[in-house]
């Protein structure tokens, strides 16, 4: 048992921390949100130059060959800086689909380009009716000779507005919510029949609603086997939750630090408000929640590659439940302990609160994952002994 980072991991952490410290102050971030894409293309290239965009990819594809721990390191740093760039959409979701289900040819074609910063991707899966049900796909995929034709609408596709390529889920057979009969397709974002409507999300990130009308996809651009995409989607969602859990911890630690700093410097009644016990205890409970969340982010890193499907799924459910609850608690208290200043967008703490609220929604909220975990029998098997 060893919770220390390896030399390589420490270096990765140092390089990302240093870059973000230089380039991601609250004020700098504000200027990035005003760029045409809502994030900084220049920083994206810097991430590529530092090798950050290839972290989870095998060295065969020019990657860093990192695993969940490396992802945790990066996402925690991104969470602490409220990074706007489409790392999660491109590397975790789009890259994750390719990494998990792509053929050699597809990996060769796509992963090195992602790593070099030359390809942006998005995962066009969720739909207006699907909510958190990963199997709920109405977009149709119909065979046309050896090709496929996609028709339907995808909603809140994270960073779908700037993506060069999309991975789109489509129903090949079966009913709207059947796990069987789903396919994943690589689609050029500018292909005929693709219409994108981009917009900012609550957390100053970007998303798009995407309409697909008679979009043609070549046979070679299907990911995985025909109709068997659900397990891939599940794996990608689990990787996404692992990444989000680390991002959430980065944000929670910042909210705690900013709040404690405020308690020390804000004076009322002639004393720092941090001298009041009611506020001290609240801050301690924020610390407890943050530390417990950090443990769950570790658990996520430990379990996201677990081979037993049921164990892995339950572990990730548990992680999302904790992250959702602790993120909400730390976020709410950070606003409360600041008082009025916590309510304004001019001050940074609220931005963390907003992002952590969105993280709770992404890939299933607390209630959703608690219900799933409970249905699956929880983490501990019944018995009178072990």
């Amino acid at each position, binding site marked *: 048992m060893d919770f220390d980072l390896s030399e390589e991991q420490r270096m990765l952490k140092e390089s990302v921390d240093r870059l973000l410290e230089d380039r991601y102050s609250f004020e700098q971030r504000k200027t990035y949100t005003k760029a045409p894409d809502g994030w900084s293309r220049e920083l994206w290239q810097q991430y590529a130059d530092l090798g950050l965009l290839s972290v989870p990819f095998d060295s065969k594809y020019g990657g860093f060959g990192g695993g969940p721990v490396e992802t945790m390191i990066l996402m925690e740093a991104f969470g602490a800086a409220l990074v706007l760039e489409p790392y999660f959409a491109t590397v975790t979701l789009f890259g994750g689909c390719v990494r998990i289900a792509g053929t050699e040819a597809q990996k060769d074609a796509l992963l090195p380009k992602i790593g070099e910063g030359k390809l942006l991707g998005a995962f066009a899966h969720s739909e207006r009716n699907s909510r958190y049900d990963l199997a709920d796909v109405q977009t149709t995929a119909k065979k046309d000779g050896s090709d496929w034709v996609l028709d339907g609408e995808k909603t809140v596709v994270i960073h779908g507005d700037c993506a060069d390529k999309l991975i789109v889920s489509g129903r090949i057979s079966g009913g709207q919510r059947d796990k069987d009969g789903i396919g994943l397709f690589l689609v050029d974002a500018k292909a005929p029949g693709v219409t994108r409507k981009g917009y900012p999300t609550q957390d100053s990130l970007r998303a798009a609603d995407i309409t697909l009308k008679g979009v043609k996809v070549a046979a070679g651009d299907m990911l995985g086997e025909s109709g068997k995409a659900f397990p891939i989607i599940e794996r990608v969602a689990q990787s996404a939750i692992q990444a989000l859990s680390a991002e959430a911890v980065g944000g929670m630690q910042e909210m705690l630090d900013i709040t404690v700093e405020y308690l020390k410097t804000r004076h009322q009644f002639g004393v720092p408000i941090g001298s009041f016990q009611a506020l001290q205890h609240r801050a*301690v409970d924020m610390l407890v929640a943050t530390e417990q969340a950090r443990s769950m982010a570790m658990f996520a890193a430990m379990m996201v590659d677990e081979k037993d499907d049921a164990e892995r799924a339950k572990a990730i459910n548990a992680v999302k*439940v904790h992250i959702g609850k602790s993120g909400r608690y730390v976020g709410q208290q950070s606003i409360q302990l600041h008082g009025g200043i916590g309510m304004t967008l001019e001050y940074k703490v609220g931005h963390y609160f907003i992002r952590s609220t969105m993280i709770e929604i992404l890939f299933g909220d607390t209630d959703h994952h608690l219900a799933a975990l409970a249905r699956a029998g929880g983490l501990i098997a019944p018995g009178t002994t072990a």
Partner: protein
Amino acid sequence: MDLRFTPEEIAFRNEARTFFEATLPPDIRRKQMLGQRLTRDDMVTWQRILNKKGWACPMWPKEYGGTGWDAVKYFIFKEEGYRAWAPDVLGHNIQNVGPVICAFGSDEQKAFFLPKLRNLDLWFCQGFSEPGSGSDLASLKTRAVREGDHYIVNGQKLWTSGGHHADWMYALVRTDTGVKKQAGISYLLFDMKTPGVQVRPVVTLDGHPYTNETFLDNVKVPVKNLVGEENKGWNYAKFLLGNERAGIARVGLTKARVRLAKALAERVYVDGAPMSENRQFREKLAAIEVELKALEITNMMVVAGMKKGGAKHDPRTSVLKIKGSEVQQASLECQMELAGPDAMARQVGFMEAKVADAIGREGMANSAPNYYFSRVLSIYGGSNEIQRNIIAKAVLGL
């Protein structure tokens, strides 16, 4: 980063598992599982089994009977014990007075007491709290005045847990009234049979005479029973803080309780279906399991850090006390809710004789008293509010 145990640790875990399964007397195991109180004999029996194996006081210095384990191994040992429903050893002997004597006692005290503490030949109780001194322990008033070769002790101690079983007491007494309150306290040991010691049982909410108040009326204590130096007692008591970090959260015990609750839930019917299929109940348990998993990882991080000789003020340590008590409490609340009306009859353990395999609705008969008693987990050893005060100051710098 590797979150798995090493092969050596896994081998040790298997050794511990086999040991607990083979040696824990079935009747003690059953009482533990059913949440019944252990007798003095039960405690003595079990601790002597451990002592025979050399495992009664793992974290003491090796020369005094410790095992030389690192924190990870100790954690594994504790977890495996809970998994098998093994009781804790008598904490007063092993986690309190024992380590203090090891560190500060005279050679004579070490030679006399340490073997008896390990083997539970002497049962110690604690004389710290007083009616007027709870969280503000250093304000204690019990007075010890030196007269020749003796101290004459007068005062009143409260919450003398196990005092009715005890042979000896380790007590904090005031030996100097003219200095800062922490600086006038000494650490004394005395025989409970000494004239002037009177123990009155205090029945706790669970209906048991778990604790006591102890009156000390001109109790004559030989000076050789002073531990360390006069007026340094507060330092010795403080030395213990954080001593039991590795096992304080009792993750394994809560795990065992959740496991049992799930097994019982299969036999408790509500509206024609087992509770184990009731969505609300399952989600309540699942929420506890999530907190418990986070606590387990936190605990592992703390012991891994201790093994490496890491920071003494790891903020996660305090998480273990606060969250550990809260999660234990939640699991016991849940057991009582599962019992429903079966929790109501007051005869503690009344179904014991009928419990063949220690499972069934009868297993819930103690759930209400155990729930009441679990409230103490966030009170004793420094209440959770005191813990928060400490973290606010030491970790957050408030």
